[in-house]
């Protein structure tokens, strides 16, 4: 295909006046032996190559659709969908997001972080070592007794649901957890695993904390049994059912009694 170009090369244009230079014919050997300037063939496209193109386009397009995050400017998550929900949840102020978790949900997190190691996620404890919370008379009775135990801890032998415990010591939590957190975790414990006792508020815990301020060490079983099995003052009326899971309640606000 380059036969024409080879012919047209003979009359060399201006600036190519090689006739003047005698030494030009002593061209460097590399130039003399080298092959012609490259040309291009015209082989057709292979069907297999077209198949490769198709695969690449298909895979690239599928990838783009799959991980596009709906092409939204705020979607950091490649799967899309979720970021919209998160955007709503985040709202203008971060605190509102906190508020939308119910006391019970917050309590669940606190329980998982602090209590679950001993009392287990199912609230059944470990036989002979850690007493159960599910169906326990301490947990499901008045809120005063469990609040005392969480605040100051418990040691020595104790009988729960007819079984003896006492090899392990429960640590006091009054230094570690705030009133709000203790109230939340109690609310959770008293309404989970089939328990249905009244919720506890931060104010109630704060009052009890003051009351117990002069009590330095952990309680024993007899200390707990010595106080009446009653709800802490200031809460919802005794026997009121806890809020249903997922129902929102603002922290510090007394939950509305139901039924």
């Amino acid at each position: 295909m380059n036969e024409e170009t080879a012919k047209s090369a003979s009359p060399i244009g201006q600036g190519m006046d090689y006739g003047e230079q005698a030494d030009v014919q002593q061209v460097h050997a590399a130039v003399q032996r080298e092959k012609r300037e490259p040309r291009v063939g015209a082989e057709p496209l292979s069907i297999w190559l077209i198949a490769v193109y198709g695969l690449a386009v298909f895979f690239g397009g599928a990838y783009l659709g799959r991980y596009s995050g709906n092409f939204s400017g705020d979607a950091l998550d490649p799967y899309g969908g979720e970021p919209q929900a998160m955007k709503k949840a985040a709202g203008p102020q971060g605190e509102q997001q906190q508020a939308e978790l119910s006391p019970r949900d917050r309590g669940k997190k606190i329980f998982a972080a602090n209590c679950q190691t001993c009392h287990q996620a199912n609230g059944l404890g470990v036989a002979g070592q850690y007493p159960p919370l599910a169906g326990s008379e301490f947990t499901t009775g008045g809120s005063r007794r469990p609040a005392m135990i969480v605040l100051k801890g418990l040691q020595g032998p104790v009988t729960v649901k007819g079984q003896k415990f006492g090899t392990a010591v429960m640590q006091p939590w009054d230094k570690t957890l705030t009133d709000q957190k203790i109230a939340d975790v109690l609310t959770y414990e008293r309404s989970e695993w089939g328990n249905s006792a009244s919720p506890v508020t931060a104010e109630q815990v704060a009052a009890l904390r003051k009351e117990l301020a002069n009590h330095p060490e952990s309680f024993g079983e007899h200390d707990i049994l010595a106080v009446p099995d009653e709800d802490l003052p200031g809460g919802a009326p005794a026997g009121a059912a806890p809020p249903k899971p997922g129902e929102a309640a603002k922290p510090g606000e007394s939950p509305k009694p139901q039924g």
Partner: protein
Amino acid sequence: MNASGIPLKEPSVSAAAADAEQVERALIDASTRVPVLMFYASAMAWLIIGTLLAGFVSFKLHTPDLFSDISFLTWGRVRPAHMNVMVYGWASMAGIGTAIWLMARLCRTVLRYPLLLVAGAGFWNLGVLLGVGGILLGDSTGYQWLEFPHYAAIILFVAYTLIASWAVLMFRFRRGEQIYITQWYLLGAFLWFPWLYAAGQLMLFVVPVQGVLQSAVGWWYANNLLFLWFGAIGLGTAYYMIPKVIGRPVYSYHLATIGFWTYALFSSWTGMQRLVDGPFPAWMVTASIAATILTIIPVATVGLNHHMTMQGYFPLLRYSPTLRFTVFGAISYTVFSVVGVLISLRSVARYVNFTQASIAYSHLGLYAFFTMVIFGSMYYIVPRLVGREWRYASLIKLHFWASVYGIGLMTLMLLAGGFLQGENMENPSLAFSETTETVLPYLRGRSLAGILLTASHFIFAYHFGLMLFGLGRTSTVPTFLNPVEAEGPETHL
């Protein structure tokens, strides 16, 4: 017929036409001598400087106390200095040198306006010198491959404008009806570079974009410099050297067209895939990943075109240094691109992002592909400029094998180390210091590879120096890697 059974002699061209072509080529070569050698010599000097800096950087990763009390030899300055010397000093200058020669040859006209190029080379050297000096003195801007301080960047841009205007002028004065594939790539490269460089400079320094978008621009620039500047020059050079040396037309024009345009189309979308899991809208990163997947199209096309051109001529790799370096580079281009696709997929990038594996990727592109192709072209072009043949076949062989083993070992070490590092960083029970310690053996292996590459570069620089000072062989036979039986001087390699 020689032992390999390949016809080494061109059959079809009439003697008169061949003579005229030879004279024309000789004139063109003579006219390119000064500017091309100027670019090559500067590039070689920068290559040696960059290699020394690289060795230093590599050792500092496993022996951090090395000279740590000298401020301009600290990691944060030496590493960008190494990268910029290699990118702008070595790779760009050598690439421009080759591009000038190819443009003149393919436009079939003696080099016009050589002053533009000489001035361009001068300014370019000045820019790199000031830039690297600025980085070592603590003036780095902190964006990958754009670390040169503003005063150096401006000089570099001026130099570039001179060179690019020369390229456009040369194209304007071209003779012959056909525009060969290599010219597409070279013209593309000469037009894409200012777009990339200006966009990077404008969006990062002149009117800076906000916040995290800066790193999006930064990675877009770095990745596209690799694709659209070095990639285009490298592919263009391979498209010339392979058919030229073996004396056979490129397999298919259609493949070349598809390969070129899809390359231009998809490459410019890439870059953001290096930011997987970063604080970016998911679609930005995903668009880049999808574009990277689509680069398989030009890679398969160009790879097939080169392979089919070479088909039946592979035994020539035994003899021709140019062909051996160029074909190694062309194969590395495919490897580089496939690795690029694999490490950009989200499931893989989760592990290898921000690890040593991305260093392996850059070296695959800039060294195993681009630098090897450019070495090959220098083995072809330099004898035609200085009128001497390469002096020692043994040095060329040493250069080739030291480079191949060096870059191979480095890539393997960094890829394996990168995967391990990424996996350990995903493991929450390992402290960060432990994750870096597990990579140490691989980093030492990389330093070993660095020593091989240093040796290869010193050998080549020595050989190049001999050629430059007229100490090459005077001969009508090119320097083959292995003796060619029977045919003698008529083997057109």
